[in-house]
C-alpha cells in the first residue's frame, strides 16, 4: 500500500535514517536526547530502524527537571525496559539544592538552570562529540534556520551567523577542538508528519496527548493540568475537570493543555490539520522574550 501520504513519509523516514547513520559514523560518541514527547518517540523508533538488527550504538539521555508529568516518567521507564535501552537520567544537582522550581522562579531562569545547564552538565560529563535531538524546523522561526548537523562552540553556544553551508545529503561531522555537534534528524518533518507517521508505524506515545477528563486550573488564560500536590493553588481555588489534551509536553506547570475531544490518533490528525495555533503556543517558556528560542539556543538549549 503506497498511499500518497505514505510515499511522502517514507521519503522523510529515509532522510532521517541516513542522518542517524551519518551521526553514528562520523560523530561518535553520540547520545540521543530523549524528552519522552512524540518527537522523541518517533526519533527513538527511527534509531531502532537505522541500525537494525544491531541496537542503536548510543545511549539515551533524559534531562529530568523533576517537574515532568508522572505519566511521562512512567512511560519513559516502560519504553527503556521494553527495548532494553541504555537510558541515562540527569538532574542539575545545583538546581535541586537551590530548590529551583517553576513557581518561585521565572520561566527563563528555571529553564536555564533545570534544562540548559543540566543538559550541558550531562553532555560534558559524557564527553559526547555530538547529541541527537528531535527538534523540527516547523516548530519555531529560529529553528527554521538551523542546520541538520549544527556546530556548537565552547559552552555549547550556537552562533547563527557562522553556520556551515550544508549541501545535498553531505553532512560535515568534523569539528575543531572545543566544538561539539547537534544533530537533528527530524528537521524537515512537520507536526502533521509526526502524527501521521505515529499512526502509520503504530508507535506508542504518552497518553497525555489523547483527550481525557483531567483536573485543570486556568493561569494567564491557559489551562494547566494539576498533576500532583506540588501545584500552588490560589486560596479557594479548586481544579475543574475538563476534557483536554496536550500538543507539546514539558514540565507540567509550564505546559498548557488544550480543550479537545481528540481521543485517538485519527482524531488528533484531523485536529492538527484544522488547527489555527502554532504547536509551541502551549509552551509558556517561549513567551518570555522576543526571539526567546534563539536566545536559549545561543546559550546551549536544544
Amino acid at each position, binding site marked *: 500500500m503506497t498511499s*500518497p*501520504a505514505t*510515499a*511522502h513519509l*517514507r*521519503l522523510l*523516514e*529515509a532522510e532521517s*535514517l*541516513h542522518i542517524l*547513520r*551519518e551521526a*553514528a*559514523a562520523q560523530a561518535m560518541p553520540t547520545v540521543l536526547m530523549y524528552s519522552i514527547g512524540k518527537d522523541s518517540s518517533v526519533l527513538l523508533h527511527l534509531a*531502532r*530502524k*537505522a*541500525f*537494525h*538488527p*544491531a*541496537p542503536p550504538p548510543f545511549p539515551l539521555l533524559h534531562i529530568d527537571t523533576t517537574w515532568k508529568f508522572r505519566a511521562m516518567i512512567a512511560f519513559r521507564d516502560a519504553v527503556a525496559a521494553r527495548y532494553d535501552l541504555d537510558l541515562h537520567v540527569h538532574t542539575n544537582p545545583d538546581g535541586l539544592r537551590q530548590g529551583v522550581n517553576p513557581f518561585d522562579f521565572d520561566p527563563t531562569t528555571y529553564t536555564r538552570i533545570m534544562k540548559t545547564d543540566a543538559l550541558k552538565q550531562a553532555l560534558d560529563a559524557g564527553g559526547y562529540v555530538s547529541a541527537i535531538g528531535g527538534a523540527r*524546523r*516547523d516548530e*519555531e*522561526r*529560529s*529553528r*527554521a*534556520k538551523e542546520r541538520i548537523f549544527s556546530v556548537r562552540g565552547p559552552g555549547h553556544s550556537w552562533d*547563527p*551567523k557562522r*553556520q*556551515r*553551508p*550544508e*549541501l*545535498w*545529503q*553531505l553532512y*560535515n561531522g*568534523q*569539528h*575543531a577542538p572545543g*566544538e561539539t555537534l547537534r544533530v537533528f534528524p527530524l*528537521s*524537515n518533518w*512537520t507536526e502533521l508528519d509526526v502524527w*501521521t507517521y505515529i499512526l502509520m508505524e503504530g508507535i506508542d506515545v504518552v497518553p497525555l496527548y489523547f483527550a481525557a477528563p483531567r483536573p485543570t486550573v486556568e493561569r494567564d488564560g491557559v489551562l494547566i493540568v494539576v498533576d500532583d500536590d506540588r501545584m500552588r493553588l490560589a486560596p479557594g481555588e479548586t481544579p475543574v475537570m475538563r476534557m483536554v489534551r496536550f500538543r507539546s509536553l514539558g514540565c507540567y506547570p509550564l505546559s498548557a493543555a488544550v480543550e479537545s475531544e481528540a481521543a485517538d490518533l485519527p482524531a488528533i490528525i484531523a485536529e492538527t490539520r484544522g*488547527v*489555527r*495555533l*502554532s504547536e509551541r*503556543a502551549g509552551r509558556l517558556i517561549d513567551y518570555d522574550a*522576543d*526571539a526567546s528560542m*534563539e*536566545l536559549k539556543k545561543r546559550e546551549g538549549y536544544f
Partner: protein
Amino acid sequence: MPEQLLRVLACGSVDDGKSTLIGRLLFESGAVPDDTMATLEQDSRRFGTVPGDLDFALLVDGLAAEREQGVTIDVAYRYFETPRRRFILADAPGHQQYTRNMATGASTADVAVLLVDATKGVLAQTRRHAAIAALMGVCHFVLAVNKMDLAGFAEEPFATAATEIHLLLDRLGTYGLTAIPVAARDGDNVTRPSPRMGWYSGPTLLAALEAAPIPTPAADAPARLPVQLVLRPNADFRGYAGTLRGGRLRVGDTLVNVGAGTSARVARLAGMDGDRTTAEPGQAVTVVLDHDIDVSRGDVLAAAPTPARRRDDMPLVAPLPEVTQQITARVVWMDDTDLFRGRAYLLMLGTATSIATVTEIGGRLDLDRMEDEPARKLAGNEIGTVTLSLAQPVVCEPYATSRALGGFILVDRLTRATVGAGMITHIQPNGRAIYWHRLDVDKAARAALKGQRPAVLWFTGLSGAGKSTIANLVEKRLHALGLHTMSLDGDNVRHGLNRDLGFTEADRVENIRRIAEVAKLFVDAGLIVLVSFISPYRAERGMARDRVEAGEFLEIFVDTPVDECRRRDPKGLYARADAGKLRNFTGVDAPYEAPEAPEIRLRTLDAEPERLAEQVVAELRQRGIVA
C-alpha cells in the same frame, strides 16, 4: 494529502523583496497559524518597513539580527501545501556575503524562484544566484519580477528583465523559464491574478509552482549504494547500511564493490519490519550479501553490468562508476580565505573522505559573460573550475549523472568548516591516470645503500627565529655521523628555483608547494632533508607533510617570540617592515600560524643553538633515524 513534493529555492539579490514574497505566499496559502499572525502584527509595529501594514518579511526572518537589520542572513525552510502539491521552500539570503547559505538551499532544490526588483533590473548577484542554481542542478526557473507597483505596473521593465534572464539561462544550458510580474507587498499575481496588469495573462506564482515539472529519476538507472556503516550485531549477521541511489535494487542482484573490483549477490534486504525483496532509490537499506567480500564505509556497491552486455562489441548499459584520484569540478567557494593551487582540503563525497590538493585552477566564472576567465585563486562566493588530486582513490560519477556521487564538499582541515561545494565535470580514471614510471631502484634501495632512513626535518618559525642557524648545526652533526643530508634554505631557494615568486599569500603557497615537492624528491633519493622556511601557514605545512610517508616528516617549531626576533633582527628586515618599507612581512603585517603539535619544539630563549641542535639529534636517535 497531496502526493507530489516540490523543493523550491527562492533567491535573488538583497532588497528585491524575497522574504516579503514568501511571507505573502505562506499567508495566502493558509500556512500561518493565528498566534504567529499575532506575533507578526506586534513585530510589524516594532520593526516593520511598511507603515501601518503587515510586514510579511518578518514571518520568515527568524533570527533576531535579521529582524533588526531587515535582511535575511541564513536560509530558512518553510513547509506548506495546496490541494495539488506539498512544498519545501528554502528562502535564501540575497547578500553576497551569505552566498554560501544560498548554495545550501540550492543543492536540494528542483525549482528556483528568482527575484528581480522591477525598478533595479537584473543585478550581478541575481546572475550569481542564477548561475549557482543552474550549476547545482535546478532545471526550472520561475522569474518573479517584483515591486511592479513601484514600476507603475508597466510591461517594459518586466519584459527587459525576462529577456535578460532568458539569455543568461541559455548561456548556462537548457532550462525552463516562467516569468511573472508581481507586487509582493499587495499580493498581485502571488496567489491571485492581478487586476492591475491587464497585459499579463500568464499564471500566478503559486500556479506556476503547482505546474512546474518535478524531475523524476530514470527508471532504468543503475543502483548505487555508498556504504555508511557496516552493521555486525553478532557473528551471524553482517549488513551494509546506506541510502540507495540511482536505481532499484532486488534480492539476487549482483553488486560490485567498485574500488576493490570484488562482487557478490544480494542475499537479503534486511529491515526492522521484516525483509524486503526490492528497494527503491532514496530508501535507507541494509544489504546482506551472499558471501563475504571486504566492504567498509566509503566504499560504493554498484549494480554489476549485466553479463550479456559484457561482450566487447556491446556497449555497457550501466557502466560502473569510476575509481579516481584526479577530478575536475565546478567549485562554489564559500570561505573568507582564498582557494589557491597547492592548498589541500578534506574532500567528502558520498560517504568517502580523502585529502584533496588543488593542482590547477582552470578558470573563474565571469558573471557578465557567463564564461570562465583565467584566475590564480578563487575568493569567497566565486565560482571556478578546479582540478583536484586525491590522496586516496574515490568512487565517483559526473554530477550530471549523479548528484549523490558527483557532488562533494571541501572541508578546511583546521577549522573543520565546510569551505567549498564541488560538482564533478570530468574524472580521470585511475587506470588511465598519468603513467607513473615504476623504477626498479627505489627510495628504499637508495636509502639502504647509504645505510640510513630518509626524513624531512622541517624547521618553521618567524624570520630571525634561528631556523637556519640551528639547521646548519644539526646538519654538521649528522654529516659528522656519516649521514647523507641536503639543506633547503628559504632565502637561498628564492635566488633560484623560486625567484619568480613574491610574498603575497598566493606566492607563499606556491613557494612552499615547490619546496615540498623538492623535499620529497630528496627523500626519494634517500637523503635526510633539512628545510628552513618561515612557512607561516598550517595548511601548507600539512601539505608538505602529506607529500612523504608517515614518520618521514618532522615538524620542528623554532619557537622565538616576535619581540625577541625583532630585537635580534639579523637582516634588518623588521626595522624595514616596521617602517612600512616591506609589505606582507610575517609577524608584522602577515600572520604566522604556530604549529599545534610539532614533533619537536625548540624554545630559543631557554637554550643556546648548540644545545637545541643536540635536542634535535637526540630526537632523531629516539625515532631510529640516527643510529
